[in-house]
């Protein structure tokens, strides 16, 4: 399988890439690791006129501590997110997600920014990054703006990005003391994509009760969904098995999933409660006070 023909540009800076993007407009596509875009192009689901390859732009990959946040370059590959000491120390839930994407070879090539900008409803990073309250840095020739994860994932394969913008960095706030993060996934056994998944960020007071919770579900709709009912159920409660199960039981309440050839809607809703419980439990275990 070959992609349809296209023009190719390999800019050497973000500015140069932005100028190319302005010039070619919606006929251009940005290429990061290419592990979503190239398969789509081979299937002719996507036939951009021009590819702007960000691979040679310096400064777009790596994880760094920036004040009270971790800043993750958009071109950081999944394997490097997974093995980053900073990520493992501060945001183990993000490492959980990075470690279960695709397979070894995909994790060596696919990028966090590519995954986020592609916004596949069966992707892992959007789910955990929404639980972690991440923000995305979008640059255009007009300047730079940030969009919070809650507002970023708009629909199936659709984000709040404008066609003239490049996602350059993902900013994740360092969670306060006593907070644990985790990600749990039911993967399709052949493709590795998400059937249903859950992300959790839970803050536990020294008394053992929950002071803050962000819980997200993936696979049940067009993108990551906040499980608001579960979050409210946990708020102020002791983080014991019974309360966690009661909160997780509400994980699918705000969703209306479609069944597909792999999994029926009822099964997906049930699995959402199971995975929410696993993610919350793992997060609580990591929430050392």
């Amino acid at each position, binding site marked *: 399988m*070959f992609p349809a023909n*296209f023009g190719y540009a*390999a800019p050497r800076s973000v500015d140069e890439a932005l100028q190319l993007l302005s010039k070619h407009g919606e006929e251009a596509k940005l290429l990061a690791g290419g592990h979503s875009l*190239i*398969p789509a192009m081979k299937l002719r689901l996507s036939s951009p006129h021009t590819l702007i390859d960000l*691979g040679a732009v310096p400064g777009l990959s790596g994880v760094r501590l920036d004040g009270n946040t971790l800043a993750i370059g958009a071109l950081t590959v999944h394997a490097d997110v997974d093995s980053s000491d900073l990520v493992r120390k501060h945001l183990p839930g993000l490492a959980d997600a990075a470690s279960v994407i695709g*397979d*070894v*070879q995909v994790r*060596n090539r696919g990028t966090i920014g590519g995954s986020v900008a592609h916004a596949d409803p069966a992707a892992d990073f959007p789910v955990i990054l929404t639980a972690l309250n991440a923000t995305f840095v979008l640059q255009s020739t007009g300047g730079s703006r940030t969009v919070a994860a809650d507002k970023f994932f708009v629909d199936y394969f659709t984000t709040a990005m404008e066609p003239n913008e490049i996602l350059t960095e993902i900013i994740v706030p360092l969670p306060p003391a006593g907070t644990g993060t985790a990600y749990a996934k039911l993967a399709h056994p052949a493709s590795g994509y998400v059937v249903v998944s859950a992300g959790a960020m839970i803050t536990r007071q020294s008394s053992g009760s929950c002071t803050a919770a962000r819980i997200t579900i993936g696979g049940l709709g067009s993108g990551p969904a906040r499980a608001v009912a579960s979050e409210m159920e946990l708020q102020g409660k002791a983080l014991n098995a019974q309360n966690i199960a009661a909160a997780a039981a509400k994980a699918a309440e705000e969703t209306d999933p479609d069944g597909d050839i792999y999994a029926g809607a009822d099964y997906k809703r049930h699995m959402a409660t199971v995975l929410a419980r696993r993610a919350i439990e793992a997060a609580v275990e990591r929430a050392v006070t």
Partner: protein
Amino acid sequence: MTAESEYAAVPIKLTVNGVKHEAVVEPRTLLVYFLREQLALTGTHVGCDTSQCGACTIHLNGRAVKSCTILAVQANGKDITTIEGLARGDAFHPVQEGFREKHGLQCGYCTPGMIMTAAHLLETNPDPSEEEIKHALEGNLCRCTGYVNIVESVKWAAQKMGGKNVSR
């Protein structure tokens, strides 16, 4: 601008198995076809062509990747190792020896990819557990289903290498 110049071929320079190459490629050329058809390195196989089976696995700047999902232009300036570049002279890489010793192949179609993935695993984790070997080979499919002997082959290689990296 004519259609031809819009889709202009792109000059690339890359190193494959220690040999420097310069070529001019259509942007849509997939790396695996560049290696097979322009460099005649046919040890790298095309299996599923959809980044699932791993038969096309090579090392790109030292990391195992699937060359059916990379454009040749993306390899510009990079260093590539294919199955042909793994042995040193007449001396097989320990993973290649392991596949021979432990009968790690039947039809042989998946073998180059399996070996490239396993060699990368042993570079990053010289003493893997059986679980770690299976996890590392998740992206390589064997339609003969010879997985038991494939895992044995990798274990054999790890032992042969004595938990040490083989620098190439």
